[in-house]
């Protein structure tokens, strides 16, 4: 007998909002005349993401207690909603970055026609053409929807589907840079091949867990783990699942794609990936580890402990010698993944420990800060697009003090200097880790952040303490979208550093996972 699964439409509103917007975007792409596509696409994507944000917030405000819906495949809990709201908000900001038309003389960061071979006469012709690519908006909206689904998935299969829904559009839009197309295409190929490879691991892990427990529902897996303990099949499955998720979160040693893809992808896309993908991936990691394998902590705990250290060290140390800002921020993202894992560790299933709320908060502030940093990168340009080589930033503060100041703010936040959001976040996760007795990990993390601080500082040194080079880059005057992004992220970075109380409260209240 088949029963219709219970389905709370209210709980699905955010997802519907996103996926709906994406579908409308596809339709616009198909039917709207070319001239009106861009504004329409931007509007739809923004409505979708902001709608997703608002509906998530409304949902969070009105819901009573935690819930699972869609036949138990989706979790509607505090952490899920917090992460969904974070992703939707960061996604909306990313869409704004995509929509910026004032900075590039060619009016967009995205290629006019992806199918035209790079470097061909037609390509050169199109480079200066006013034509813009608008497929990125529905693609990005799909990706955001996928991410929001990812963090709410209460079922490994849904998780897998969400993983693909968020990944596939990302593969595509990574390859859509208007300038330096070869790099962009290379990034797309690498991301795609490795991403597919990682998905296969995740999937195989899913299959093994299914084989071990007979179910892919996280709650069922937990029960099974609690009663049966971990047999080899399940442990292998867990390992492979972790591999798949760590890949998305760009945690070392599964980070190798990150620098290449971050560097090659169009900068707004990099910003989007760095901010939103990280949030989504950690949402899934939290859910998998605590909801699915929460009773099996002792198995994966040492592993995550080790991975966290490796990731922090690799990110911090490798970042030292980078000369490209985007690559440097990629390594920074790897190091931050390690810091986030310390927060993940500082959480026990009983929910007493502040690890979950700390991780949620950290994800929010990291997303905002890194998005802002990449947004600044889009503004500093030379004749061939963004000037991302470090040496080009020398003396920037004297050309453009405001941009340099904003960038410095983001860099200080990434370095975790007090009175910026980055410090509050770091403090929160390290407190969680130490509270849980993992103080050696916290000490390693702190030393790693000191090392990482060196390369953040190097940028500040260049901007402020070096004399400008002749023929250096120009700082473009941003249009409204980028201005909004910078204003929001910079204000958030400062506010969450000085008076983080209310947001911490929010994260604290949101810190629960439904099983």
């Amino acid at each position, binding site marked *: 007998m088949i029963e219709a699964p219970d389905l709370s439409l209210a709980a699905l509103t955010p997802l519907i909002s996103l996926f709906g917007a994406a579908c409308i975007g596809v339709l616009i792409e198909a039917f709207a005349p070319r001239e009106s596509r861009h504004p329409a696409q931007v509007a739809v994507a923004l409505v979708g993401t902001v709608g997703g944000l608002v509906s998530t917030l409304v949902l969070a405000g009105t819901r009573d207690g935690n819930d699972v819906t869609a036949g138990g495949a989706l979790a509607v809990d505090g952490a899920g909603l917090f992460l969904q709201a974070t992703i939707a908000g960061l996604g909306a900001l990313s869409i704004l970055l995509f929509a910026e038309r004032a900075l590039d003389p060619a009016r967009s960061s995205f290629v006019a026609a992806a199918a035209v071979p790079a470097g061909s006469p037609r390509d050169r012709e199109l480079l200066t053409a006013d034509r813009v690519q608008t497929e990125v908006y529905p693609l990005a909206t799909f990706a955001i929807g996928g991410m929001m689904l990812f963090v709410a998935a209460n079922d490994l299969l849904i998780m897998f589907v969400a993983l693909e829904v968020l990944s596939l559009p990302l593969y595509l839009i990574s390859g859509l840079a208007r300038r330096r197309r070869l790099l962009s295409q290379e990034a797309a190929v690498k991301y795609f091949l490795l991403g597919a490879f990682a998905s296969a691991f995740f999937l195989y892990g899913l299959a093994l867990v299914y084989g071990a427990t007979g179910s892919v529902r996280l709650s069922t897996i937990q029960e099974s783990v609690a009663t049966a303990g971990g047999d080899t099949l399940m442990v292998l499955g867990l390992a492979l699942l972790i591999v798949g998720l760590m890949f998305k979160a760009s945690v070392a040693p599964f980070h190798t794609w990150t620098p290449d893809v971050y560097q090659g992808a169009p900068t707004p896309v990099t910003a989007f990936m760095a901010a939103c993908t990280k949030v989504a991936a950690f949402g899934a990691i939290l859910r998998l580890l605590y909801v699915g394998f929460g009773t099996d902590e002792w198995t994966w705990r040492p592993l995550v402990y080790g991975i966290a250290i490796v990731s922090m060290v690799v990110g911090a140390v490798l970042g030292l010698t980078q000369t490209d800002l985007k690559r440097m921020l990629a390594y920074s993202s790897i190091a931050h993944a390690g810091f986030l894992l310390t927060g993940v560790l500082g959480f026990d299933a009983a929910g007493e420990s502040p690890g979950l709320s700390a991780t949620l908060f950290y994800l929010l502030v990291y997303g905002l800060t890194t998005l802002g940093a990449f947004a600044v990168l889009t503004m500093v340009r030379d004749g061939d697009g963004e000037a991302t080589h470090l040496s080009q930033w020398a003396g920037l503060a004297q050309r453009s003090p405001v941009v340099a100041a904003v960038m410095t703010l983001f860099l200080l936040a990434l370095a975790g200097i007090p009175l910026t959001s980055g410090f509050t976040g770091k*403090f929160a996760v*390290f*407190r969680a880790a130490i*509270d849980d007795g993992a*103080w050696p990990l916290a000490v390693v993390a*702190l030393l790693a952040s000191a090392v990482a*601080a060196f390369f953040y500082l190097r940028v500040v040194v260049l901007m*402020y303490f070096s004399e400008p080079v002749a023929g250096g880059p120009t700082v473009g005057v941003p249009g409204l979208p980028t201005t909004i992004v910078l204003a929001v992220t910079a204000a958030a970075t400062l506010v969450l550093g000085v008076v983080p109380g209310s947001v*911490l409260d929010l994260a604290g209240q949101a810190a629960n996972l439904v099983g």
Partner: protein
Amino acid sequence: MNSFPFLLLMIVVPAVGAAVVAALPRGRDLLAKQISLGVSLVVLLLAVLATAAFDTDGDRFQLTSSVSWIEDFGVSFALGVDGIALVMLLLVGVLVPVVIGASWDDEPVGTRSMTVFFAWILLLEAMMVGVFAATDVFLFYVFFEAMLVPMYFLIGSFGGPRRQYAAVKFFLYSLVGGLIMLAAVIGLYVVSANQGEGSFAFEVLNAIDIDPDVQKLLFLGFFVAFAIKAPLVPLHTWLPDAGAEAPVGGAVLLVGVLDKVGTFGFLRYCLPLFPDASRDFAPYVLALAVAGVLYAALLAMGQSDMKRLVSYTSVAHFGFIALGIFAFTTEAGTGAVLYMVNHGIATGLLFLVVGMLIARGGSRRIADYGGVAAQAPVLAGVFLVAGLASLALPGTNSFVSEFLVLIGSYPTRPVFTILATVGIILAALYVLLMYQRTMHGPARGLMDGQGLAADAGEPAGPAGGTGATAATATATATATATATATATRTRRVPDLSRREIAVVAPLVALILVLGVYPQPLIDLIEPAVAATVGDVGGDPGGVVPDVDTSGAETEAGN
């Protein structure tokens, strides 16, 4: 009067002042300077009024105020001062106007604007007040780290030729220490949370009992941060670089006040919070302190760069301060705190004078000077006063503090004290060597234009000096000429200008007055130190003599 928010105002006023100055359009340098000076004088006034409102017989912490800040972390914006913090605030209040006055005619490097310089100075002042006035460990940490930023920019933007290296080194050293301390700060919170409500309030933390092993770890966490900041050997190598490359005003605040946070931290946090660990580690700390006294003094003698030399002398002085703190006697502790104040004044003056000399000669190398005393007697005189204060000659303020430190340390730690007294001789050596080489003898080197040819290879820009005035311009101009052409012409070194005299006069006066009548400061400091010594298990009343003399001579025969 006690409810008046002195401390809050002392943070807010300069912070707002910094914002105002930073917002001034370019080219309004004079206005920026006037605003900065005004603001810093207001802070000084507030500090003095706060001192007047402070009751030496009252509670340990006074002028307190507390507002909940980040509830989730149990953090309050809690301010309050004991005598130790209060005298440090006075020092901040005195030094900042002096520094602003001393930097009045400075020319920035490159195309930078001096308004920014003054904005950073004011912001730094706000942070420094905060770090001393915080009674919440978290708040203290926030100021402790945030303080780095203005200093970093002061060194990096307005410093000497190797300013980038120095600024980054300074920042990273301090950051490493700070981050290790952060771990301990969190650990402290966790410990307090395990014993009830988690809190960062100093008074709560002071009352809890911590397991000795945990204490050791936490102590080390705090200690490393403070030992870097103070700095103790072997964590000192950032200071000579930072001190040498920083602009003179920045160097004064860096060595005069900023680094005191380290020793202040020993006294405020390490000792009271971790008394057992402090006792266990005291011999090692003392060994480092004494090693620093001797090692840094010898190194100071070997320097060829005046600002590096002064920086090394500070390392030696910090050794004395650490000795006083970890001797665990009221006398030595009082001496150490007094030393912190006096060192700020004396070394501040020394840096200022050296800066004025550098502004005239355009070089930091000792070998480039000679015979200045004959041409600029007032400059030489002030230099001598600063130097004598630095070698703790009786009659100068430093003597009182050094004497208290040593006499207070001797009863509990005779061996370390005896070793440290050797530092007294070394101090005389490095001060007088520098004085003789620059001020005495026949005019030579840059002073008669001969050293320029040899020096022309180096960047001839202003070496971060006070007022890269006409002297430097001449130096640069003549540097291009051949040595033989300029050798015959002796250039006169101008003596101190009225502004410069006005800048150094308050410090000279303080050196002499506090050298003769230090008791008011001691009265402020002593209760707080006694309480701290009591926390760590010493006798707050002072050293108990080995021999009971109450019986007087009647027992002499026994």
